[in-house]
């Protein structure tokens, strides 16, 4: 019996794999490509020679021990590191083939294409409505009807509409932590990005709120390319299609990508011994 079941599972997985491979054949290349990316804060080298491909409309998880530079890596993708004094980036990050670190590249456009959700929910001290309308207003949308439409649609996409439709004009700060984080996601969606970066989006949330955010990510995967940094391996295993494992060899050395591949591969059959040790909880 068991033997038979195993064979069936094996067969199903093979079918799924070949299907995945076929669909991937039709897709254009990766959405974002990191090519020899290095980053330093002053004299401290935080990341070195990162090579990574972020696939389209999939969730890519970046996992690794604290302080390995995974958040720094994420912030390289929408140039949020630019605002940190003393931060220097070399190498290339290509978004649809264009290097976002080219001197002529429009950072404003980049950040509208590559949105970001932060570790701690950070709604503006404004109303729920104004939080979501902030991005569209920046883009020059003035028409009240259009704004209302964008706000409603974004909140619906973020699975928050039913909970807040009665208090759109109430302060965003009065929402619960989980609602605030989904509001932040709605705020990003309102800008109509193509890529969404999530920096440990659930680390400040309770398990129920975490579950809702994870469900939301699964829905959004249809339309958006997502990169999620998490130190929660179960979360990476649950939500992501691809996983990159980042770590530092010794204290003070730069972080590097040890292994990158399909999530189920990384978690069931890691190629690198260090990945295995991390995943099985023997360090970090």
């Amino acid at each position, binding site marked *: 019996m068991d033997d038979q079941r195993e064979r069936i599972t094996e067969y199903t997985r093979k079918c799924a794999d070949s299907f995945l491979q076929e669909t991937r054949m039709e897709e254009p290349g990766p959405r974002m490509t990191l090519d020899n990316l290095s980053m330093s804060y002053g004299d401290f080298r935080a990341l070195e020679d990162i090579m990574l491909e972020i696939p389209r409309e999939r969730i890519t998880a970046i996992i690794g021990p604290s302080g390995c530079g995974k958040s720094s890596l994420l912030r390289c993708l*929408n140039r*949020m590191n630019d*605002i940190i*004094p003393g931060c220097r980036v070399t190498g290339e990050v290509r978004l649809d083939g264009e290097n976002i670190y080219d001197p002529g590249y429009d950072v*404003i*456009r980049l*950040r*509208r294409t590559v*949105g*970001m959700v*932060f570790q*701690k929910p*950070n*709604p*503006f*001290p*404004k*109303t*729920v*409505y*104004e*939080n979501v309308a*902030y*991005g569209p*207003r*920046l*883009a020059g949308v*003035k028409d009240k009807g259009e704004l209302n439409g964008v706000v409603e649609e974004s909140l619906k996409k973020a699975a928050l509409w039913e909970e807040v439709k009665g208090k759109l*004009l*109430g*302060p*965003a*700060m*009065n929402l619960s932590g989980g609602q605030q984080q989904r509001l*932040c996601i709605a*705020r*990003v969606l309102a*800008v109509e990005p193509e890529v969404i970066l999530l920096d440990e989006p659930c680390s400040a949330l309770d398990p129920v709120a975490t579950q809702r955010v994870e469900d939301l990510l699964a829905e959004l995967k249809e339309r958006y390319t997502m990169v999620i940094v998490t130190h929660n391996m179960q979360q990476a295993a649950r939500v992501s299609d691809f996983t990159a494992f980042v770590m530092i060899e010794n204290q003070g050395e730069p972080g590097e990508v040890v292994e990158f591949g399909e999530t189920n591969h990384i978690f069931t059959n890691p190629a690198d011994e260090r990945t295995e040790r991390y995943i099985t909880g023997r360090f970090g």
Partner: protein
Amino acid sequence: MKPKTADRLATIAFWLLGGITVGVLLFIILQIFGRGILTALNPRFLLGKPEAMKEGGGVLPMIVSTLYLTGLTLAISLPVSLGAAVFLSEYAREGRLTNAIRFCVDSLASLPSIVFGLFGMTLFVIYFGWVYSLIAGAFTCAILNLPTLMRSSEESLRSVPGTYREASLSLGATKWTTVRQVVLPSATPGILAGTMLTIGRIIGESAAIVYTAGLFVRNIPTSPMDTAAPLAGYIWYAQTEALIPDFRRVVDGGAALLLLLVLLVNFAARRIGRYYQRKKMAGGADG
């Protein structure tokens, strides 16, 4: 001494010291109001013109001078100090320049106000030829209040969480948009509180204005170029130099009025702060 006895003594001592602070303030307020509040609230005093040699003069031009001077001073110092604060907290990278600016500002803040008064007289009144005028007084007061106003604004801006700035920038806002739409609105209560304290200081300022704005006028000043007589300076003048026979009444009434004004401003400051706190929570709907 037993620990228990020491504890009891300490408790008594701290109650006593706290009581002294409150007591001194209450004593002054009661003294001033007790002597002058009836005069201060008398319509003939409040709305009358001052007399130079006779009894029964009022202080209306002085009240107007004080309010006028306060408004003009803020109109000059608020934009400058706010701009400098935004520069220091949002734009400047920490370094020699910011250190130099802070050093200058702190030095400016520690100068006695009579120095500003004499400086204002030399520069504005004599060199620019503005004579004793509201505008000369306002510029002097503006310079005097620049450091505190700037530092309090800078503190308010710095207390705005960096996560707001990050959120705004990550949505594709420019730095200036972020400052205008997110940072300044969030810092407004703090900036207002600092402004209110400054207003209190301008109302009570005498050394900086007696040689710049003027000491005595009979008519209500209208143009910024008019000579004025802000209340605080006039009280000093009435007490020491004027030839008014009933100067005691004028001084007591003026002092009570001045105290009343400052208390009103402080009260308003608290109300405005609370109002903004509520409005902030409800979200500013400014596009």
